[in-house]
């Protein structure tokens, strides 16, 4: 049902009441949304620095969140600026943002226009200088992980956060994901559902595509601009994840998310890292495309060995997940709901209480117990399946939204950051030594310096 133009003067409340009475399925109506909060006086003013794929996703998410005004967009590639402009235009917010190539110029011009926040999603090697500059300009920062391509860069960010008193959230979005929070804080730590954890395994195998020019013809950035921002060529800019000067490669791009979960669950620093890897497939890249890293975590309950694997030439293994293996069960957590599961060991006590209390949901119907019944008789059927359980927590927003919400709530004084710069350095400290450990074929012994600013 479409409301005719003459009905446009029907008040919002009247229309919604009428809609509720008719129960007419899908309907179109004029101006039924409450006023857009981006125009309110207390909206936060946001700059997005680095508006490629990830910056675009964060922008998409923020355009659906209330109370934010996109004040500025910065990217050295005009094509990225145009895409951002198109997103704002499609959202009916044309003219809301000013566009910049240079982040320092953005800060100079926008900091006195009430800029509150910078969302930094540029290549890793720009994170530290941009974050430090924004914090020093009095702007709160949400910066994508990895914090930096070097541990020195990450340390400088933490020091700037402390010196300025401004907020710095690092984009480990799993920290604000309600399913991860439930699985780790409730299932593993509080209820101790998997029992004593002895081993951890995580992976993110992905079949990435080879080489190529990576940009539409005619959209090249001028050579002097590329050079000013550290890129010898357009390929270096577009394929920055392939180069050692700009990033840590797949093991840090993807592993940063997942190895952070090792630290979150186990709650202690690892003592030792052993890693193997190589450029086995993509010969035109500088980073390892096949890495296996093993950490030793001496937890109060005993040693836990944690294995991380990332292969760039195959998606084998079913996507990205983190698996915590205990003597009473296994919890598998993932940003992909279908991969999130829990399995009970046959010797473990019943998990019925956790199902009843809503900690777990039972997925598979338990078959009749083989060997059940009276002592003198045995019930023989097909092989008994392990009990399989689900984790009944749903993320009802876009995947990055809870972490962004936590950041904006913290600025408004309604929350504390779920993952500030200091905690992120503590976590990412286990990742920075991986590439050197592979290259030197030598175990890395962690010291406090790996984790502190």
């Amino acid at each position, binding site marked *: 049902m479409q409301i005719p133009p003459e009905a446009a003067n029907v008040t919002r409340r009247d229309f919604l009441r009428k809609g*509720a009475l008719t129960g*007419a*399925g*899908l309907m179109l109506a004029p101006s039924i949304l409450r006023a857009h909060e981006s125009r309110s006086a207390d909206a936060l003013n946001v700059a997005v620095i680095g508006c490629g794929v990830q910056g675009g996703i964060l922008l998409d998410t923020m355009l659906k969140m209330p109370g934010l005004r996109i004040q500025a967009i910065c990217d050295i590639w005009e094509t990225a600026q145009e895409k951002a402009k198109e997103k704002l235009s499609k959202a009916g917010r044309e003219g809301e943002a000013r566009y910049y190539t240079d982040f320092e110029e953005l800060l100079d011009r926008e900091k006195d226009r009430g800029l509150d926040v910078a969302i930094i999603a540029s290549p890793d090697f720009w994170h530290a200088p941009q974050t430090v500059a924004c914090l020093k300009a009095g702007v709160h920062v949400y910066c994508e992980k990895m914090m930096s391509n070097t541990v020195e860069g990450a340390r400088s960010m933490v020091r700037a956060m402390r010196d300025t008193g401004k907020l710095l959230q690092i984009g480990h979005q799993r920290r604000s994901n309600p399913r991860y929070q439930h699985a780790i804080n409730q299932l593993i730590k509080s209820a101790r559902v998997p029992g004593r954890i002895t081993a951890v395994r995580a992976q993110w195998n992905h079949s990435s*595509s080879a080489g190529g020019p*990576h940009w*539409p*013809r005619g959209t090249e950035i001028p050579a002097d601009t590329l050079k000013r921002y550290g890129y010898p060529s357009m390929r270096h800019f577009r394929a920055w994840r392939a180069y050692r000067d700009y990033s840590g490669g797949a093991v840090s791009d993807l592993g940063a998310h997942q190895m952070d979960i090792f630290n979150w669950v186990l709650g202690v620093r690892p003592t030792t890292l052993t890693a193997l890897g190589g450029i086995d497939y993509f010969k035109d890249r500088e980073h390892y495309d096949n890495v296996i890293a093993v950490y030793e975590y001496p937890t109060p309950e005993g040693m836990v060995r944690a294995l991380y694997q990332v292969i760039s030439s195959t998606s084998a293994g079913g996507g990205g997940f983190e698996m915590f293996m205990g003597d009473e069960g296994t919890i598998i957590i993932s940003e992909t709901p279908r991969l999130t599961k829990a399995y009970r060991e046959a010797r473990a006590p019943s998990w019925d209480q956790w199902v009843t209390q809503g900690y777990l949901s039972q997925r598979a119907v338990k078959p009749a117990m083989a060997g059940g019944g009276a002592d003198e008789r045995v019930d023989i059927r097909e092989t008994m399946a392990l009990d399989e359980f689900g984790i009944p927590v749903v993320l009802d927003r876009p995947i990055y939204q809870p972490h962004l919400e936590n950041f904006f709530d913290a600025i408004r004084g309604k929350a504390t950051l779920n993952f500030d710069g200091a905690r992120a350095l503590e976590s990412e400290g286990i990742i920075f030594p991986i590439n050197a450990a592979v290259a030197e074929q030598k175990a890395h012994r962690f010291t406090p310096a790996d984790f502190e600013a």
Partner: protein
Amino acid sequence: MPAETSVFRFRHEAMATVFEVRIRGEDSERDYFAQAAREVFQEVDRLETLLSRFHEGSDVFRINRLVQGEQIRVSFECHECLKMAIKVKEATGGAFDPAVGGVMMAVRGEGEEGTIAGCGETVSRAFDAFAQGSLVVDATEAGVVCTVPGLRLDFGGIGKGYALDQAVPILRRWKIEDALLIAGGSSARGLGRSGWEADLAGDHFRQTVQLRERATGGSGIGVQGNHIVDPRRKVLESRHRRAWALADTATLADALSTAAMTMSAQEILEALPRLEASFGQHCAVVMESWENGSPFQWIASKVDKDHPLGT
């Protein structure tokens, strides 16, 4: 010597099916085309995170969980699909309705609605359970308000076509003008004036159409069996074995082919001018059925130069 040309094919799994980009061009450009296709597939994946009812946190996932009076902002893309769906619903007299997604899943025994799987002919029970809600879509701003909870939106009837349409500006940005976009073997959109042949293949006939800046979408019961829910009669029944629609955009072709499955030839004939007025696109429908003793019928609102049968 003229450069060698070929048709390059790139495939990608998304939206529970396979997307394919075919590009006609010089052999030396293969890597360039591969990168353009890669950007198309990234966009398809992004759209899936917005439009799939199964993707946790997608706009549709959130809409289907709204409580009474709740308002949310959605993506421009979801808003566009909602507005488009409402227009097609109006023009087809309700034969197209993405709000019956939950009903379709329930009668198939899939998804969360599997709790009433096996209800067989009691489709009306599924309507009672999964098609009672009411959702108001803001005509200008990208947002919705739930007035009655319980609606289960599903863009399965237009999502793939919409993704193909969104790929077109990407290919144009890559300066690729001669390409064919395909989703799941049931939706296709051709770019360029040289044209791409599409075979509308039924059990008893095969008709070739030229896709020159045109799209086609197909629906049918030949592969999945009788899974078509008629939103108007509230029954699990289609009037035709297959239906194909032609339009300028794959979104409209997809929606129209879905609607046509439960519409009579006369109803389609009456709906086409309304669709043309609403979307500014010339549409046509081909059906494989048994109505009027003919194995297939071709209905268009005016002479279709891409088809020898005309109206």
